[in-house]
């Protein structure tokens, strides 16, 4: 049993994800309350080079050819073995496509409590999680003696978890990984025929508030008038109103642009986490309490349909 905080590093196709650095920053804060070390846990194959900028006290590296790419089954087996042996105070996972496939399963397998969607830790080491789409925070004591935690972005900046001098890497043993029930066949890259919205300087983003497919034309006309491109949040993509390549959000693209003009987007965490790096966010929403107004620089409380055509005309007249 130790007071150490383990951070399961997420990486895909040779790139360490931002959430890994966010978690290292959170682990640092938590370790100050528990008095333990921050330990980055890297699983992979010939992937030691990825451990070059982790703000951790130690790096544990688990190398196995079946850990070369993420699969839930292999990660669960390797991590169940490590957690049982080392008994750290807490293990942090991303609340992501990778972390979510592993953390809950380990919670049941090892009989350990799980804290979900944690955004930050208090000075006393309590967890603060977001619930109700980020509108309410839930705070509690970190369960003892070992807690599993999935972390959402927003509480810490990824740069807080980066360091120029990474600590030494210690190799850890990997258990037998036979009879895996999940195997990776291949990756399928997104189609590149469409515009790459992550490279656009100005996006007109539409959410559920756009109501139907025909109304996308209104957003298109506005985008053309100002020289931008239309993108959407998850509900718009799932309805087939815009193609997947236009999805901005947790499972879509992260954007860092000059202007993000959001219409009818409430600002659920899984969307906003992908846009906070933008220079200027302008939001149009009928709900004055919509969370999008907390991250936007400028807000307009109005029905988007009252505004969009008038604004398009104004832009056409001025350009």
């Amino acid at each position: 049993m130790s007071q150490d905080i383990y951070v399961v590093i997420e990486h895909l196709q040779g790139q360490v994800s931002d959430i890994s650095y966010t978690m290292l920053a959170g682990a640092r804060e938590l370790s100050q309350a528990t008095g333990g070390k921050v330990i980055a846990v890297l699983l992979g194959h010939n992937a030691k080079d990825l451990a070059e900028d982790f703000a951790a006290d130690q790096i544990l590296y688990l190398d196995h050819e079946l850990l070369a790419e993420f699969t839930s089954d292999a990660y669960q087996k390797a991590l169940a073995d490590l957690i049982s042996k080392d008994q750290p105070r807490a293990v942090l996972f991303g609340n992501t496509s990778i972390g979510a496939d592993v953390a809950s399963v380990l919670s049941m397998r090892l009989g350990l409590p799980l804290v979900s969607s944690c955004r930050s830790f208090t000075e006393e080491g309590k967890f603060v999680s977001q619930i109700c789409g980020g509108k309410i925070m839930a705070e509690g004591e970190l369960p003892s003696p070992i807690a599993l935690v999935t972390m959402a972005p927003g509480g810490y900046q990824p740069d807080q978890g980066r360091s120029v001098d990474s600590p030494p890497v210690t190799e850890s043993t990997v258990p037998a990984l036979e009879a895996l029930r999940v195997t990776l066949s291949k990756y399928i890259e997104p189609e590149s025929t469409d515009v790459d919205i992550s490279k656009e300087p100005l996006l007109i983003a539409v959410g559920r508030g756009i109501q139907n497919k025909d109304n996308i034309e209104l957003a298109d006309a506005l985008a053309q008038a100002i020289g931008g491109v239309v993108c959407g949040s998850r509900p718009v993509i799932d309805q087939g109103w815009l193609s997947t390549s236009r999805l901005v959000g947790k499972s879509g693209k992260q954007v860092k642009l000059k202007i993000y003009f959001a219409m009818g987007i409430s600002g659920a965490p899984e969307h906003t986490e992908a846009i906070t790096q933008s220079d200027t966010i302008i939001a149009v929403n009928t709900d004055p309490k919509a969370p999008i107004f907390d991250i936007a620089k400028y807000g307009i409380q109005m029905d988007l349909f009252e505004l969009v055509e008038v604004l398009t005309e104004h832009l056409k007249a001025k350009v």
Partner: protein
Amino acid sequence: MARSFAAIIKELQADLVLTGVQAHNDLDGSAGPLLAECLQSPYVGYVSSAAINDGKSVIRKEYPGGLLAEMEVTLPAVLGIQAAEQPPRYVAVSKVRQAMKASSIEEMDASDFDPSGAPAVGRMFQPEATAHAEMIEGSPEEVSAKLVDLFKELGVL
């Protein structure tokens, strides 16, 4: 909940169990993977397409940036579904009524709830927004004029 479902699904001997990835409200995302572990089945979440082939399910899992991973999952399995290949559509009321007449709903006893493993929440509160947008007020005409000025200021016009 996962334990209760598992008790019933074990009896039904299902080859494939589909759950959502996470609820809109709490974004917890635990029901699918907890259920899978109760059933000793593999779990893959964020799935946007699934097919059955020769005792295995061939699935596509979503990663950020539009990247997909094609994976093979041995059955029986639990999959967390993120999206469908086709958008969901409304079912005509007449079809719903037809189904209500033709099919029956079988009730099964849930086992005793065992909520162990969930962390205790000490307090809940509304997040204090560190900042709030500067609101642009006025009629649609006035707001549009102000936005045009703003776009010029930001150098996009």
